[in-house]
Each structure stands twice: as C-alpha cells, then as structure tokens.
C-alpha cells in the first residue's frame, strides 16, 4: 500500500486565482458584467438589424406632422385635428397626469378612512369594510374600470331624459353638466385676497406655535386658519360687487351645450382606480397603526392627553413612518394602472401617442419610447416627493 503522496507540483495559475476568494469574486463580477453587456448589445443589435431589414428609419420627425384625429377630453390646452402629433401627445400626457393626481388624492382619503374603519371596535362596520376590501383587492383592476363605466352608462339616463337638479346641474350617461363660472372685471381682487389669506395663515401658524413653545398657551389654529381662508375671499367677493356670473348648460340637439362637463370616461377611470388603490392603502394604514405599541397611547393618556390629541400627536406621526414607503409604491401603481384608460375610451398618453399616432405613422419604437419616458418621469417625480416627505417624517434622533 502506498502512503498518500503529497504532490510537489504547483496547481495551475487559473486554479490558484480561482481559490483566492478575492480574485474569485472579481472574476465573477467581470463575468456577470460581460454577460449583461453582451445581452444588452444583442438586444440593441437585434433592434437595429431588424429595423434596417424592415427598411424603417429611427426618427422623431413624424411629431411635427398634423395628427388628424380628435381628442374629446382636453381640459387644459385646446386641440384640434389639424394640430401636430406633439400636441396630441401633450394632451394625452396631461390627461394621464389629471387621472393620476385626482386618483391619488381620492385614493388617499378613501384609503385612510377605510383603514381606520377597519380597526373600528364596531363589529358591523369592521366586517363590512373587511368584505369590501377583500372583494375589491382580489378582482383585476381592468374589470373594476369596465364595471364602473358600465354602471355609469346603464344607470344614468340619456341627455333627453337627464336628471336635472334645479335646472342647473344635469346628470346623464354622457357626463355631468354643471354651470361654468364666467369671471368678470374685479375678480382679480378676490384672487389677490386668497393669496393674502394664505400668507396670513402661514404667519399666524408660526406665531401661534412660538407662543405655544414659550407660554404653553394653545390657539385653535385649524379653526382660525379655515375661517381666514374662506372668510377673507368671501368678504372681498361681496365688497367688489360679486364679479362672477354663471354659464348654464342647456340641451341643444343631441347633447348639452355650455357649462362645464365631466365626462363619464374620466369619472369611471378615476373612481375605479381610486377605490381599487384605496383598498391597498387601507391595509397599509391599518398595519401602520397596529405597529404602534399600545403602551404609547396608554402613556399619553397617563400624561393627561385627550384621545384625539393622542392620535394626532403620538400615534399618527409614528404610524406615518411605517405607512409612507409602501404608500409610495401604491401611488406608483395607480399612475401606471391609468394606462388601461383606452379600454373605456379615455384619451391618455397610451391612447393618443402610444395608440392612434403609433397606428397612423407606424413608428412603434419611437412612440413607445415617448410613452415609457412619460411614465418613468411621473414615477420618479412621485418617488422623489415621497422620499422628501419620508425624510420630513423620519424619527429625529437626539
């Protein structure tokens, strides 16, 4: 039997490099990078080759040509079929923005309300919200959108049989028609007074907190602020001779003319997205509040703080720290889900530049890049805002 021999020959260079942990990790990183970049290169090369093979040129020149199609819902800038594709894209982007902003606001209000109701000690309230949340969260959002739109179209009457609320507001399945304000001379005073009111409230708040810090005296800041914000412009309005008149909607031919109208597509999309997202927010809020230990509020009660003061000063600020990061991703979801708009005919960025323009010009790559960049931009703005808010709310360690 041979005794185990020790090899005198050194292992090869590669093997030695591999056995060294530091070298090994560098090697793995290099390999990963090479694979990643070759994949990217492959995709880029593939796109370029295929575009060339199809004889297509990569250019954004089509943006300056007349779009030729109509966009019904254009609340911010005017648009007609003779305008360019660029303008059509802007109208679409603004419509997306409108749904995103109004959806986020409604979702937040609904979500916080449902989250708190879900914690209610009232069994019935608690269970009703629970069932609603579970049902809504587990049905795809597209179905919610179609569902709300369907309800809207089939329950409300056609314009000829419109539900009239004292002949000023009309409800139909083609939208809600309300009187439109017409500003006359002198309305500038009212606008100025609103600005002044905001400034007053701002300085009053700082002064009130300073007084509280030094003397401990607490002013009812909220009530006084609201009074100033509403009262001052209202007073100015009447003293300047009520410089405002209303344009009434009236049925002419097929549809109502005049006044302002809110389209069913916008209402259905915003509302469906808002309550769907609100259900997720409700669970986040519930989780955030439950994360605050009971000892916190007991201690606050022990110090003699009343229940709403406890909620306001002790529980909510701490709960927000748990709530904000996941809340941010819900806002992003809502914004991105708004791309389902075309299913019910709301002309957002996907329906205009990423839909009709794409079809008419055949520029898939270019239009999709514009759509992607739009959503990327919106998402980054929301993230930046939420990060700023999160830092503001973060625990200040002393």
């Amino acid at each position, binding site marked *: 039997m041979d005794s185990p021999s020790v090899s005198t020959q050194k292992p090869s260079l590669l093997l030695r*490099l591999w056995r060294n942990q530091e070298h090994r990790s560098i090697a793995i990183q290099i390999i990963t990078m090479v694979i990643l970049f070759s994949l990217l290169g*492959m995709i880029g090369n*593939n796109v370029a080759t295929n575009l060339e093979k199809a004889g297509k040129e990569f250019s954004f020149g089509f943006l300056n040509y007349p779009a030729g199609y109509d966009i019904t819902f254009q609340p911010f800038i005017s648009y007609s079929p003779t305008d360019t594709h660029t303008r059509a894209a802007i109208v679409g982007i603004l419509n997306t923005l409108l749904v995103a902003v109004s959806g986020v606001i409604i979702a937040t209000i609904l979500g916080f309300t449902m989250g708190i109701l879900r914690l209610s000690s009232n069994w019935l309230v608690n269970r009703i919200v629970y069932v609603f949340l579970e049902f809504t969260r587990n049905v795809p959002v597209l179905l919610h959108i179609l569902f709300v739109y369907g309800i809207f179209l089939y329950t409300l009457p056609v314009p000829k049989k419109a539900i009239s609320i004292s002949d000023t507001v009309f409800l139909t399945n*083609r939208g809600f028609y309300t009187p439109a304000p017409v500003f006359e001379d002198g309305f500038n005073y009212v606008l100025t007074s609103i600005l002044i009111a905001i400034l007053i409230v701002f300085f009053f708040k700082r002064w009130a907190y300073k007084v509280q810090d030094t003397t401990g005296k607490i002013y009812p800041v909220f009530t006084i602020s609201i009074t100033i914000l509403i009262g001052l412009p209202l007073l100015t309005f009447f003293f300047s001779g009520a410089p405002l008149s209303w344009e009434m909607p009236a049925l002419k031919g097929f549809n109502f003319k005049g006044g302002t109208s809110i389209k069913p597509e916008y209402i259905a999309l915003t509302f469906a997205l808002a309550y769907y997202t609100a259900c997720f927010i409700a669970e986040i809020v519930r989780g955030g509040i439950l994360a605050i230990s009971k000892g916190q509020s007991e201690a606050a009660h022990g110090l003699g703080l009343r229940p709403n003061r406890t909620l306001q000063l002790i529980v909510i600020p701490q709960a927000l720290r748990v709530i904000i990061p996941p809340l941010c991703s819900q806002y992003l979801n809502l914004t991105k889900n708004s791309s389902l708009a075309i299913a019910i005919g709301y002309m957002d960025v996907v329906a205009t530049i990423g839909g009709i323009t794409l*079809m008419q010009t055949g520029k898939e790559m270019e239009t999709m890049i514009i759509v992607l960049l739009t959503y990327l931009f919106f998402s980054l703005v929301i993230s930046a805002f939420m990060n700023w808010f999160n830092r503001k709310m973060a625990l200040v360690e002393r």
Partner: protein
Amino acid sequence: MYMRALIKAALTLIAVGALAFTATAGTLEDVKSRGELRCVVSTGIAGFAYPDEGGTWKGFDIDFCRATAAAVLGDASKIKAVTSTGKTRFTKLNSGEGDVLWRNTTITFSRDVGVKLTFVGVNYYDGQGFMVNKSLGVNSAKELDGASVCIQTGTTTELNLADFFRANNMSYEAVTIEKNSEARAAYLSGRCDIYTTDASGLAATRSTFPNPGNHKILPEIISKEPLGPATRQGDDQWADIIRWVYNATVTAEEKGVTSSNVDSMKNSNDPEILRLLGVEGSQGEELGLSKDWAYQIIKQLGNYGEIFERNIGPNTPIGLARGLNDLWTRGGLQYSPPFR
C-alpha cells in the same frame, strides 16, 4: 490571459445571439417547414373572423386564410389564427408572429409606404358608414351636428371621421374605444348617438344586437376602404403567392368553377381553366407551390362568390349585398388578371 478568453467567449456569444435573432428564411419555407400557416386576424368580427361555439375560426377573412393554407400546404385546416387588435396587427405581422395579415385592413399610402407593408389586392371594397338608432329620426349624416360618436381605435376611421365633420362644419364628440365589444356596448347604452366603422363592420355588428331592426345604417359612405391582405415588405415570392391565391378565387368565379364542379372542370375545353387547375402550364411550380394549388383552394373552399355567400352574403345574418364586390362582368370591381 484568461481575460482574453473571456472577451473571445463574449464576442462569440454576441455573434451567435445576433444571428439567432435575425436569421430568417423566406416566409414560404418557414410555413412549409412548420406545416402550419399563421394568419393575423381580428379578435372577432361576426362574418369576417370569429370563433364559433366549438372554437373553430370562421368567416370571410378566415376562409381566405384557409385558402392560402390549402394552396401552400394542401390542407385548409392547417391554420393558426393570431388575433390582434387594430393597434397591434402590423406589429404582429412585422415581428414575424404571423405570416400574412387577413384582417379587414384598409390599404392606405402611409401603411403601404410608412408601415412597410406589401398590399397585394383588395378582397373586399368597403366604405365608412354611420349607424344610428331609428328613434332619433335622423335620415342623413349631414344632420349629425353635435352628436356623440363611438369609434374603435387603431383604424382609419378616426381620421375619416375628423375630416368628414370638419368638411361639413359640424362639431362632434368622439368616444374612442379599443375593442369592438366595448364600443358596441357604449353605443347600445346610449353613450353615443352614432356608431361608425366600415359599412361591412356596421352590418356585422348590427347582426349581433338584441334588436337589429331598431338601428339603421345611414346612406352616406364617407370614405373609400379597400380592404385587403398584406405581407411583410421584401418577400416578393410570398407576396406573389397571396396575390394569386386571391386572384384564383376570382378567376374561378368568373369561369364558373365551383367547389362542386371543380373535378369535372379538369376536362374543360377552356385553356385558362386548365392552367388555373394545374392541368396545363407550370404556374404552381413557378410560385414555389404544388401543381394543383388552385384546385385545392377551390375544392376545399370554393370560389370568391361561394366564400362571400357563405360568410357575409344576403342569406347570412350579416346580409351584405355583393354591390361593389360583384365581378367586373356584373358591374362590380372584383377583377383578376389572366392566368397566363
């Protein structure tokens, strides 16, 4: 040293990958080796392309797709319907997901030149029309000022509509919806006064309404919509095959060759019929197909008239008259170059 090997390996990887993505033979070889023809069709228009209760695709466009399969593969059942919305159809064709587009597609300059398609013929002459509820008492499209209009997106319809209302100094509200099914629901609920699309599509959609009799199609046809098949640009042999598949059905009708008499027609005295059916001449080989390619089309699906009558003719729920789509010998526009 091993760095160089790594770079070499990476470069090979890139090259191989690029090849794998871009290497494609002609469409004809692809279809033959796959043993199945993939047609880009609509997601469902009654009479033109729709799955029946058993899930089998049927309709006017589907029959032309089957005719192509009969010519290329000898078997009309070897097709796969690649469904697409108006928006995705060209992408699906150009990306190679489908071999040919048989989907109520209007031939326009921008699609032919800008979208880089090859259109090979017109198998249905259509035009955009308006449908309204009879209770509105509207008799002409010129009375539609201020109306709400439901449209399906991704079509030439949006542009025609904008042009028509602008030319007549009328205002309107467009409700642009992605799918025919949802646009139809919006029209039926009264969200819109008018539904607009190609007249054939209006008839097809109306046939699916609960009360088709309550709706009428206005007399104005506001556009020319020549609907036809398309192939990817640059594959001329494949484009030729599609063109002559369509021409074969028209020639067969003109010469009175039907699915029931095609066998006896092989003994005809007319040399063009003999060339069509592959008894004489070498048309099949020149196209890269079998000798009896057109015989297979007619035997399995019939001529143009038979395909029309079976799917959308007056005796079907769609109930379209031949009109412009009659043979040129009977005052229509369907005309095939000679088989010679």
